[in-house]
């Protein structure tokens, strides 16, 4: 179902942004558990869900909103994530017919694959800005455990987001098209 009006997406978007706020607060407080090296990038997971599941021309704008909220909790800013997220959305758009998240293992694998693509785009941008490969290698060391954990979480978060966006009837998760 194409959602081409703002009213179609606004209530779900607001709930998603509130959810993101809560998850970002949780992620920013991970160091109080004594884990200082790793965080959980929920913003990436939400962007991936929207690109997999949502068919709307406003998708890049949604990515922008999500990254803007993320920038309140990170000095990363909104721009780099928005660029990576939008490129991932374009890719998903082309592969839409091939992505069928009809089981938990497939969802985990697909999420892992797209996180890897996201990492590749961001790393390329960092390399273009700093010219340092060592930092990217170190970043990859952090990315692996973080992304695996996020992929394992993804089926549960996606099913929660499913309820918010009521997108089950859109057929991508293996349902009727």
């Amino acid at each position, binding site marked *: 179902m194409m959602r081409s009006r703002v009213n179609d997406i606004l209530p779900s978007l607001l709930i998603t942004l509130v959810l993101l706020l809560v998850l970002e607060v949780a992620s*920013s407080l991970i160091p*109080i558990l004594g884990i200082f090296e790793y965080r959980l990038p929920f913003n990436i997971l939400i962007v991936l869900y929207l690109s997999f599941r949502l068919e709307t021309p406003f998708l890049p704008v949604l990515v922008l909103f999500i990254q803007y909220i993320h920038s309140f909790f990170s000095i990363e800013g909104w721009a780099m994530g928005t660029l990576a997220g939008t490129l991932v959305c374009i890719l998903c758009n082309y592969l839409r017919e091939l992505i069928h998240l009809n089981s938990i293992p497939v969802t985990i694998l697909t999420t892992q694959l797209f996180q890897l693509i996201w990492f590749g785009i961001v790393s390329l941008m960092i390399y273009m800005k700093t010219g340092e490969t060592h*930092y990217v290698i170190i970043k990859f060391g952090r990315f692996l455990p973080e992304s695996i954990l996020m992929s394992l979480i993804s089926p549960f978060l996606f099913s929660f987001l499913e309820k918010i966006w009521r997108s089950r009837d859109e057929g991508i998760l293996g349902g009727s098209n």
Partner: protein
Amino acid sequence: MRISEGQNSGRQKIVYYLVVLLLSTYGVSRRSIHMDSLTPFEQLVINIVSPIQKIVSQARTDVRDFIVHYTMNVEASKKNLDLKKDIGQLHEEIFSMQEIALENRRLKSLMDFQDETAAKKVLAQIVAWDSSSDYKMIRINKGSNSGIQLQSPVVTADGLVGYIFRMTDHYADVLTVMDQSNRVDGVVSRTRSHGIVEGYARGKMQMKYINRREPVILNDIVITSGLGHIYPRGIKVGTVSRLERETFSTTQLVELSSTVDFTKLEEVVILVLSYDQMKKQEWDALDQTEEEKLRIVEKEKKMKSREKAKEKEAPPAATKKEKKI
């Protein structure tokens, strides 16, 4: 009709994608992590969210304190009797310590000791950390209402933490020295070798642009040079933990461990300097750097002349052997 609607939404989609892509590309190219100003909306969101982060952070401290206090309480009742005996002895030691403190104060006044960081100090607590593992930012519970300013240096008793990167009325984000975007003009305290310290990896920092001939050794202490308008001179940044001197390179790789234990960081001090103070410190640092360089050159000259004199006085070992033969 449906086809035209589809075409319209398709065009709309392309336009949105193009606009967002261009906007974000512009944002990435313009982005420099130096200092950030917040819009009223951003300030509002941070001011709403930060108290929640503060409450959760505080709850963790309370729970930890409760557990620690309970176990300590059990232990304390056992030790109480022993401690009472020790108190008598400690009273005597305190008396002698007080005498030493008084003496110290007198000597300091005699030496005309001055606190180099004549800055207003604001104590703050950490309420949250950066939500991305790529960046090393911390959020503190003091903002512009407490008198702190953008780019105010943040320290602890152990050394440098970072500087205020962005802030609201009640909260501020500190870009720590462990972040790759933060650069500190540093000096190796022993050799006065100059370099730029920046966040590296796995909780380490890297000191760049030190000539490979500089005699830096392990455990050398690196301090701030006072240049760069942000950090006052003489704050401890880290200690040298690894050195690499490649034959093909003109510089050496100097890896530093921070003197501050970031994993146990709970409170920090913000040094608030006025613009004039900062300017003065910068000029002082520049003057002193030149003076120090001259002093080191003179010292080296003296050392060399002494060595030459010694060589002249003592005949070479080879000639002695020859005489014996």
